[in-house]
């Protein structure tokens, strides 16, 4: 008995019981669909976060005061640091680390900004002119902080669009004086609108010269220095250079932490990879349940067709012919369910971001391949037992079965 013939027999059996076959397939369809959809959502989150992180400037190196032993991960600037990172450190890096295009000193914190009777709690970032280039954030009207402002601790402020709108509405903000934590600052510029990134509203920020910022927060330390290298290949050498320069200035102690953007991305990718795997695993369970559904229906089908099995055996069918017939039936159910599930899953993954823009998805070839292989395997695994049961029927008993 050749394969094509067996396939035809199995296919006829499936078609003769359309509703039942459809419902059985539904279990696999939902399982495969869930795997593809959830993995796509996980992947989408990963792609989105990677894009957002690199959108804030590329090849960045972040230097924070204090030493932590790990590489990568997030380390909030901590108080009680052994030795501070100073504005002069940043200047030294800018002058002497020739592999770096920029070394931008940063202080930040929250504070209250007031104009007239309107006030708003917002994030205050103290920095230097190069910030614009490093972080890909540019001034829209007026001007950004200049080196002169930094040198002279000028009381000037550049507003994020959100802050500007909240305090000034449609009015012109340039040249106006605002109160920033009880000090008078003059508005010199408004930033270009950027929107939200990773849950943070980049427009709800004001910028002041780093030296003024230090005064505002009453500190002579920096919270971090953002350095950038022109090429990703230079990262390792740039790190060495930074360490060399800073350690000479810090009594040969490595009392600062260097994080690369790559390491942060890696950490994020690991976290989201685990998340995706967990989602896929949960969906995989539903695929497993679908497989059990196939086994259930195949067992019913074998019982129902006991007499047919007896007839076929009396007419010369060997055990393996019967086995093949029921195996192919199970595999056709799971395979067809798999394909339909893939189509629906991919379809939904492509449609969802159109309607729900906070849920980016990314359909990956490996998730499709995995879901299909898994569903085919489910067919084989859950088909074997019923098919074996069918093949080993005693022909006499089977013929007598009513």
């Amino acid at each position, binding site marked *: *008995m*050749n394969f094509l*013939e067996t396939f035809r027999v199995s296919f006829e059996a499936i078609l003769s019981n359309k509703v039942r076959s459809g419902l059985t397939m539904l279990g696999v369809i939902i399982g495969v669909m869930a795997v593809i959809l959830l993995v796509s959502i996980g992947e989408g989150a990963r792609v989105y976060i990677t894009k957002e992180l690199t959108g804030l400037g590329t090849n960045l190196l972040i230097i924070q005061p204090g030493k932590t032993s790990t590489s990568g991960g997030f380390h909030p600037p901590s108080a009680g640091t052994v030795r501070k990172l100073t504005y002069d450190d940043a200047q030294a890096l800018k002058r002497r680390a020739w592999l770096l295009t920029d070394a931008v000193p940063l202080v930040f914190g929250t504070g209250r900004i007031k104009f007239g009777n309107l006030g708003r709690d917002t994030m205050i970032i103290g920095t230097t002119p190069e910030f614009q280039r490093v972080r890909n954030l540019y001034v829209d009207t007026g001007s950004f902080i200049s080196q002169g402002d930094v040198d002279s601790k000028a009381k000037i402020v550049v507003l994020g669009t959100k802050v500007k709108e909240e305090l000034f509405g449609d009015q012109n903000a340039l040249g106006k004086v605002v109160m920033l934590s009880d000090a008078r600052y003059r508005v010199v510029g408004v930033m270009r609108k950027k929107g939200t990134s990773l849950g943070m509203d980049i427009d709800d920020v004001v910028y002041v010269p780093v030296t003024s910022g230090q005064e505002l927060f009453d500190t002579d330390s920096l919270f971090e220095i953002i350095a950038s290298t022109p090429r990703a290949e230079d990262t390792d050498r740039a790190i060495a250079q930074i360490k060399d320069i800073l350690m000479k200035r810090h009594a040969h102690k490595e009392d600062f932490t260097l994080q690369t953007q790559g390491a942060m991305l890696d950490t994020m990718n690991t976290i989201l990879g685990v998340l995706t795997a967990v989602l896929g695993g949960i969906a995989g369970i539903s695929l497993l349940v679908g497989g059990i559904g196939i086994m259930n229906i195949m067992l019913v089908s074998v019982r129902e067709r006991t007499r047919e099995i007896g007839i*076929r055996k*009396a*007419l*010369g069918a060997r055990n393996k012919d019967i086995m093949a017939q029921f195996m192919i039936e199970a595999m056709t159910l799971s395979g067809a369910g798999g394909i339909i599930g893939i189509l629906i899953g991919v379809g939904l993954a492509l449609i969802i971001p159109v309607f729900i823009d906070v849920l980016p998805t990314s359909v990956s070839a490996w998730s499709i391949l995995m879901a299909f292989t898994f569903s085919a395997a489910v067919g084989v695994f859950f088909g074997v037992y019923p098919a074996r049961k069918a093949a080993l029927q005693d022909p006499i008993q089977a013929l007598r079965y009513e």
Partner: protein
Amino acid sequence: MIELADITKTYRMGEVDITVLSDVSLKVRQGELIAIMGPSGSGKSTLMNIIGCLDRPTSGVYRFEQREISTLSDDELASVRNVKIGFVFQTFNLLPRFSALKNVEVPLIYSGVPARVRRERAIPLLEQVGLSERMHHKPTELSGGQQQRVAIARALVNHPPLLLADEPTGNLDSRSGEEILKILTGLNNQGVTIIIVTHDPGVAARCKRNIHLKDGQIVGDQVTA
């Protein structure tokens, strides 16, 4: 053609062994037309199953065309059933989802005959049993007599030397039963060896040899014609 020597069949029912056939010896020559008779529980069906290679004897020797059958594997038995033996059952046992033509083709599927050849061999047989116009009908659309004729065509499609019929007229009215008997005797005249298990003395009277079974033993074996 067939030789059974001291065939015994016992079934184990819980703690007790039940002997269904004991020391049955029988020889069947090519071209015979035999009726096996006997009351229920006499072992007719078991004897039939053993002759039909659906079952193995507990002890004894069964030779089919000089080949020892009792020791063959399941798959080898399947192949003997496929090529050497045609079955006709009391309840017809057609596959309900298939047309008459497809049903007749089934044994050829398991012989590995290609689809086109299967048709070429099945159609003349359906014509021979007078069903050329109904070959695309499903069993449920056929009368009992017509279904049994399909079953006979199916039994013959691989040109087996032996035809086994288990109460072939048992579920039919007398007119259809008569038609079936005519077909069977006609086939016997063409040289096919036929063994019929029956309750009906009328059917037995049409056979050339009658074998009586009682309590698992042959109690009578006479040649009538």
